[in-house]
């Protein structure tokens, strides 16, 4: 089912959680709401579920206005950050709850048993029927929460920081598993996360939210390769900033002496650490000089911290181990830096 969000605004007292948010989600899509904590992403998810109400704007589920629908009528599956499993019920009863509370066409007991067993098999928890939530690991609880949400045959699945409370390894496993599950059942799903890697790895499209506003919507590649704003650029990864200026139709990175004063459009060039090249000779492009102050090997990459000779600003570069070995640079050495791929944004005017 498709979801249309139109001009949603929500305030909590004087704090504006969402400002004029509009969003379309196609049927069967897996969308990530990504942003720093307190940016409004969870509020958006809760409004979609019907647990919270917007101050203005509307939500259409499959073309129908959701404002008139109660939480129960919306047929939305919600997976809570801390799972919110019913602690006094077994795994079986947790999953069966949504079916048991139906007022109309409640399935028979055999039907409920059949469906719960099928869901537990789907989330790889067959045989856990009689356990209580306290007896399960975090990953298992998360999967019970998912089975419980799926039991009511929702039209949309909403997940609030689904992997937030898990340790790194389980988290990785579970998100791949969720992606495969989504490919299998093709249920329109929206999940909230503050973890960039998670959003880029799992989702079909990413919605980046900051201060209650949508900064950019796009596929993981689109947002990573073509960030729409400095915020998106910074949020998606480490970044180096260079002041730049227009020089006869070409963009040039400014050295210390040539501050962007006098130019009409002061610019900022952004380059990711892995887009910064290091070399011993200046090369054809004007290259900046910098001293290596720290070298750190992290897994397959080598992080190098440099201080620019002209401005004293810190620049971060990331080399593959191979490149690092062939170059064989050392701490204290003076090298040239070439940002080989930059993205330019206009500097905010003071």
């Amino acid at each position, binding site marked *: 089912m498709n979801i249309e969000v139109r001009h949603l605004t929500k305030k909590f007292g004087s704090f504006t959680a969402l400002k004029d948010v509009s969003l379309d989600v196609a049927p069967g899509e897996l969308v990530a709401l990504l942003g720093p904590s307190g940016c409004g992403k969870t509020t958006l998810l809760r409004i979609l*579920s*019907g*647990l919270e109400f917007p101050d203005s704007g509307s939500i259409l589920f499959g073309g129908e206005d959701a404002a008139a629908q109660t*939480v*129960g009528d919306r047929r*939305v*599956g*919600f997976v*809570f950050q*801390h799972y*919110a*499993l*019913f*602690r*006094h019920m077994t795994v079986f009863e947790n999953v069966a*709850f*949504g079916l048991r*509370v*139906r*007022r109309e066409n409640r399935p028979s007991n055999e039907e409920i048993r059949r469906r719960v067993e099928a869901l537990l098999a789907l989330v790889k928890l067959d045989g856990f029927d009689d*356990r*209580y939530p*306290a*007896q*399960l*690991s975090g990953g298992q609880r998360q999967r019970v929460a998912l089975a*419980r*949400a799926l*039991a*009511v045959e929702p039209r949309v699945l909403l997940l609030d920081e689904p992997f937030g409370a898990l340790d790194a390894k389980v988290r990785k496993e579970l998100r791949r598993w969720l992606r495969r599950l989504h490919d299998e059942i093709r249920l329109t799903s929206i999940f909230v996360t503050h973890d960039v890697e998670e959003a880029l790895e799992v989702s079909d499209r990413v919605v980046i939210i900051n201060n209650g506003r949508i900064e950019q919507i796009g596929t993981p590649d689109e947002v990573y390769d073509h960030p729409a704003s400095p915020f998106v650029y910074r949020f998606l990864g480490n970044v180096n900033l260079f002041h730049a200026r227009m020089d006869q139709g070409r963009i040039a990175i400014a050295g210390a002496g040539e501050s962007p004063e006098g130019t009409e459009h002061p610019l900022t060039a952004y380059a990711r650490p892995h887009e910064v090249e290091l070399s011993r000779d200046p090369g054809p492009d004007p290259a900046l000089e910098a001293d290596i102050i720290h070298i750190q090997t992290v897994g397959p990459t080598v992080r190098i911290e440099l201080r620019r000779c002209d401005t004293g600003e810190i620049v971060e570069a990331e080399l593959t181990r191979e490149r690092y070995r062939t170059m064989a640079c050392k701490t204290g050495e003076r090298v040239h830096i070439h940002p080989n791929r930059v993205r330019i944004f206009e500097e905010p005017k003071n």
Partner: protein
Amino acid sequence: MTPSEPVRGRAIAAQAVTESRAVRFLLIGIALSFLALFLLLPLAIVFATALQKGWIAYWAAISDPMARSAIRLTLLATAIAVPLNLVFGLAAAWAIGKFQFRGKQLLITLIDLPFSISPVVSGLIYMLVFGLQGWFGAWLEEHDIRIIFAVPGIVLATIFVTVPFVARELIPLMQAQGAEEEEAAITLGASGWRTFWSITLPNVKWALLYGVILCAARAMGEFGAVSVVSGHIRGLTNTMTLHVEILYNEYQSAAAFAVASLLALLALVTLAARGSVEWRARQQLRAALRRSEEESHEH
């Protein structure tokens, strides 16, 4: 990490902060002798004095029509006050634990008010409101409704002094549990009523029962507030505590202690009930923990 490691770690930590054997014995000894002197000894004296003149006199004292009427009245007041407080306590704790609203802190303070006011003062307040010279006195007199120096006054006073018990037990628990499970139930299509019965109530049942037991104990033992509004009309408005006082003032100490021993027995029964409720709650928790420990062994 095996599950026994944190346990061992805890034992070492306990050793590090513990006192020497002599100091421990001294402290425990002081606590125990204090208990014996101020709790067990008086209790023993109550029963000894009650049975001073033999079982026949004991039976006569508690089967006396006036005593029986006092027992009935105490049980009646308790039977009315406890369910009312149960409903009120649940409603208040539900509101405080699950919702955000203005005046929440004020509500918590108000619930505690009966703890901080002397019961005699609260009795006097009822006199001022419902007594003959009080605000509603004339109106009540006209309609021939008796509250003060009658059973309704005693029930009201009992309700007032027991207000905090159920709410106080539930508020911290419900605040700690938050509203997530209820929200989950609602997104799964449960009605508010269904959510309350299948989710909220089972999650607080032991604390609720514990609050009810404390509330019942207090309702039966109340003296000050009831004494002010009762008027001490024998056979009509005398509760057990008041009856004990009257008997004692009339130098019938054996009879007084006989009725007092009944109150003490009720207290002991409540204590036992309380103990078993606590024990069951702990038992349940331990079972859950044990099973999850076995679980982590398997992995």
